[in-house]
């Protein structure tokens, strides 16, 4: 993979090109699309049934049904986590083959005779054709982040069934539909962005609402995910050292690629990965060293300051030095780790410890997130099932690189299915540890103190924390999958290497020492739970029990890399968005110019201040911060999804496909019901941010607090007010946006004038490119590919002859 393939690689064709012999069957011939020059540019989508195919799909459907019934009816005995993998994959396959295809035929009506933005513009920069399999990977890397790893873990307190159903059914009927249809409308409009399309289709007013919403949403997402990272890194010298070292590693990679081997991305990535592994191992020695460990033991607040300084530096340094190399590493980690995890789950074959539905599903006072199952479970699990932010990615680079319209289903719908699958894996990680360990890890110190009656804080000794956590777990009336009261247990090995199940506070201490940490109590935010699960899957086939601490910190690194990438990418994107918004004001026009240095500094400052202050307040919150941030993050993300569906509905209505309007409207109505109910409860009533704020206010006014407790209470008070204000802001903004959309749709239907000319779709342009549609080219597509190559050759020779 070094210089040998450097230039020779250019001549390696995409696999599967051979000589053309005209051997179409009549049925095949009918499906080939030819343009006016006689070039075959595509294949009409059609479901061709053969007996073997029908049998395969029947088997898939039966396995799927069996899997769902195992998950739904199992009571009183442990089940294998592999069932979750089976159920998810079968459901995805059926949805992709039938439902997504139905949408393709009825709504998207993709036509390979029409040229995609890449072919129309073809500017050699962003509008450049990209092989479908490559674009699938790039689109997946673009949409995936740490989000799907967090929500399912927090939601596991209510049992596995509601989460599993929402992740799988949600992605099939909402999340993947949104991604695919957003990609479709953008690809039909020269790859225009979400905000521009909203302006074109729904007017300036709707477009502005969306642009403002996107900036706020970006800041919230960054603050929330950074909080997750901070929670996992706080007082862990191993994690702080190994993640901190990714900065020098990125610098080395950046310089290597810049000065020694320009353009050798794979080499650079391998170099970086090797350094990363050494770095994680070195972290273990740092954590063991009595001299070095205290240097790298940072509190949450210190980490926030470090993170803010870092993101500012990242925005100021040239891209090739820090951001680009780390992007390489996180892309590699995203795809590589997912594959390792699936293998790990199948080999480890972990047993599910959590019942389908726990006692906490019926109450609104569960520790990991507060609120009833409806609506709060559906916003806690945001990204794995439905994520509005994907609308921005689907109208970003992907539509500009698309080769053919028929590939939209595979890339848009398919990538989101993989994203949902990551959420299922995170869920498996949370439900295969004992519930006692799960709650000990995911309850804040304050919650543990309340439930156990023993006051603990971050400064208590690990033993005190573990004892209090066990007491708290025993005081909660929650049953395990066998119907007994849940217990704190940890499967490990004793000093002689024999398998042993530890119980009580011993279990928590053993678990902490297994993963190379001092304590696992009250490590909220989900990252610790996910990393513990991932470590136990991976150790099953890579390194055995002794490798557990390594894999734990590998997993923390995996999440932290995502999040760091998010933090500096987000800062940069937010900076541009803020610049553009300010540029709309006449006096501040200069901000719209991205080359203006002073303007850049100001907009970066605004962006960092936005998420940095939210992060600070979250860390200072004694209740853990996660509890307050989850709903606001989930609500904003799901509201953005509602905006995507509104836009898509308007586009579909304008085309006059009245019979199929239900496809975007059903998820829209569901999403609006969920988000507006949740938002309403967060503004009014006992769960609201304002009630929380009032509580803190009386506490502060009573004068009982002093010192740090008082500062923290004040931070929590402003946090509650800010979140409350944001909830109101969201409700008003999106309420207006949805109403604008509904009015539009009603007007369109009343006017009764439909068609492409009523939309901002680009007019038809004849395509001259061919590329297969699905991940693996079909027999017919291979034939057409050969004919295309041969015909293209003929046409070129003819052109040369006439010249």
């Amino acid at each position, binding site marked *: *993979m070094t210089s040998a*393939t450097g*230039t020779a*690689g*250019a001549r*390696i064709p*995409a*696999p599967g090109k051979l000589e053309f012999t005209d051997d179409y069957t009549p049925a095949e011939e009918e499906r080939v699309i030819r343009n006016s020059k006689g070039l075959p540019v595509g294949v009409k989508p059609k479901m061709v049934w053969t007996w073997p195919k029908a049998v395969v799909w029947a088997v898939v459907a039966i396995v799927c049904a069996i899997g769902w019934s195992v998950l739904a009816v199992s009571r009183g005995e442990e089940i294998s986590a592999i069932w979750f993998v089976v159920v998810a994959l079968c459901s995805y396959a059926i949805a992709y083959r039938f439902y997504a295809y139905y949408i393709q035929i009825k709504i998207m009506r993709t036509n390979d005779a029409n040229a995609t933005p890449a072919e129309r513009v073809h500017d*050699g*920069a*962003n509008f*450049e054709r*990209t*092989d479908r*399999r*490559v674009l699938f*990977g*790039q689109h997946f890397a*673009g*949409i*995936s*982040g*740490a*989000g*799907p790893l967090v929500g399912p873990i927090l939601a596991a307190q209510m049992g596995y069934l509601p989460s599993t159903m929402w992740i799988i059914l949600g992605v099939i009927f909402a999340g993947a539909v949104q991604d695919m249809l957003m990609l479709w409308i953008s690809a039909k409009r020269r790859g225009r*962005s979400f905000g521009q399309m909203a302006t074109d289709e729904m007017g300036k007013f709707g477009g502005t609402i969306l642009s403002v919403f996107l900036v706020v949403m*970006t800041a919230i*997402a*960054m603050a929330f*995910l950074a909080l997750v990272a901070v929670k996992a890194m706080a007082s862990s010298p191993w994690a702080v050292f190994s993640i901190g070292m990714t900065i020098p590693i990125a610098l080395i990679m950046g310089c290597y690629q810049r000065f020694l081997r*320009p*353009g*050798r*991305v*794979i080499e650079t*990535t391998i170099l970086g990965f090797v350094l990363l592994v050494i770095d994680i191992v070195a972290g273990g020695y740092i954590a063991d060293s009595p001299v070095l460990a205290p240097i790298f033991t940072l509190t949450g607040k210190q980490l926030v300051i470090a993170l803010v300084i870092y993101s500012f530096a990242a925005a100021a340094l040239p*891209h*090739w030095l820090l951001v680009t190399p780390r992007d*390489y590493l996180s*892309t590699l980690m995203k795809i590589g780790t997912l594959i390792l995890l699936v293998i790990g789950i199948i080999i480890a074959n972990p047993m599910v410890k959590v019942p389908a539905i726990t006692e906490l599903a019926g109450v609104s006072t569960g520790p990991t997130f507060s609120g009833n199952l409806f609506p709060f479970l559906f916003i806690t699990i*945001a*990204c794995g099932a439905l*994520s509005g*932010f*994907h609308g*921005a*990615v689907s109208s*970003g*680079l992907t539509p500009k690189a698309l080769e053919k319209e028929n590939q939209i289903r595979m890339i848009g719908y398919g990538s989101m299915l993989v994203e949902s699958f990551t959420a299922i894996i995170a869920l498996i990680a949370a439900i295969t540890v004992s519930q006692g360990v799960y709650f000990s890890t995911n309850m804040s110190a304050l919650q543990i103190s309340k439930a156990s009656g023993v006051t603990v804080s971050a400064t208590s000794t690990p033993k005190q924390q573990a004892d209090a956590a066990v007491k708290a777990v025993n005081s909660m009336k929650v049953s395990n999958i066998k119907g007994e009261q849940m217990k704190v247990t940890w499967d490990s090995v004793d000093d002689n290497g024999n398998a042993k199940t530890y119980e009580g506070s011993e279990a928590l201490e053993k678990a902490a020492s297994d993963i190379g940490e001092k304590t696992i109590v009250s490590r909220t935010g989900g990252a610790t739970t996910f990393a513990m699960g991932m470590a136990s899957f991976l150790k099953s086939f890579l390194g055995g029990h002794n490798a557990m601490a390594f894999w734990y910190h590998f997993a923390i690194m995996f999440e932290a890399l995502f999040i760091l*990438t*998010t933090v500096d*990418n*987000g800062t*940069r*994107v937010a900076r*541009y968005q803020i610049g553009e918004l300010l540029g709309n004001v006449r006096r501040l026009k200069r901000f719209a110019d*991205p*080359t203006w240095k002073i303007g850049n500094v100001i907009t970066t400052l605004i962006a960092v201040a936005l998420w940095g202050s939210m992060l600070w307040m979250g860390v200072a919150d004694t209740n853990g911060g996660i509890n307050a941030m989850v709903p606001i*993050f989930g609500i904003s*993300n799901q509201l953005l999804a509602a905006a995507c569906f509104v836009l898509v509905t308007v586009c579909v209505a304008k085309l006059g496909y009245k019979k199929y309007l239900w496809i975007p409207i059903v998820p829209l109505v569901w999403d609006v019901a969920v988000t507006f109910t949740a938002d309403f409860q967060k503004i009014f009533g006992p769960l609201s941010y304002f009630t929380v704020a009032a509580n803190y206010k009386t506490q502060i006014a009573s004068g009982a607090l002093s010192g740090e407790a008082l500062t923290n209470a004040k931070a929590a008070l402003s946090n509650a007010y800010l979140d409350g204000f944001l909830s109101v802001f969201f409700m008003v903004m999106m309420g207006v946006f949805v109403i604008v959309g509904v009015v539009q749709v009603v007007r369109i239907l009343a006017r009764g004038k439909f068609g492409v000319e009523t939309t901002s779709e680009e007019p038809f342009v004849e395509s001259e490119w061919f590329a297969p549609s699905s991940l693996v080219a079909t027999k017919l597509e291979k034939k057409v590919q050969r004919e295309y190559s041969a015909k293209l050759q003929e046409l070129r020779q003819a052109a040369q002859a006439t010249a």
Partner: protein
Amino acid sequence: MDIADKARKIWQGIVWYMREISGEARYDHYLERFGEEHPGETPMSEVEFLRAREEYDKYHPNTGCCC
């Protein structure tokens, strides 16, 4: 012989995919296209191409997902 051939093909496929997805092959595609559209002219060197690309990316930020 047949197995060795298959293995080589799979390996080539993997290398092809890695080069494409990492963006390493971008310069090759540029050369191919430049050769077709501007025969006889000298294309940018790889370093020049990478710098131009960087400059372009600087002012066209790509919205990756936060979540």
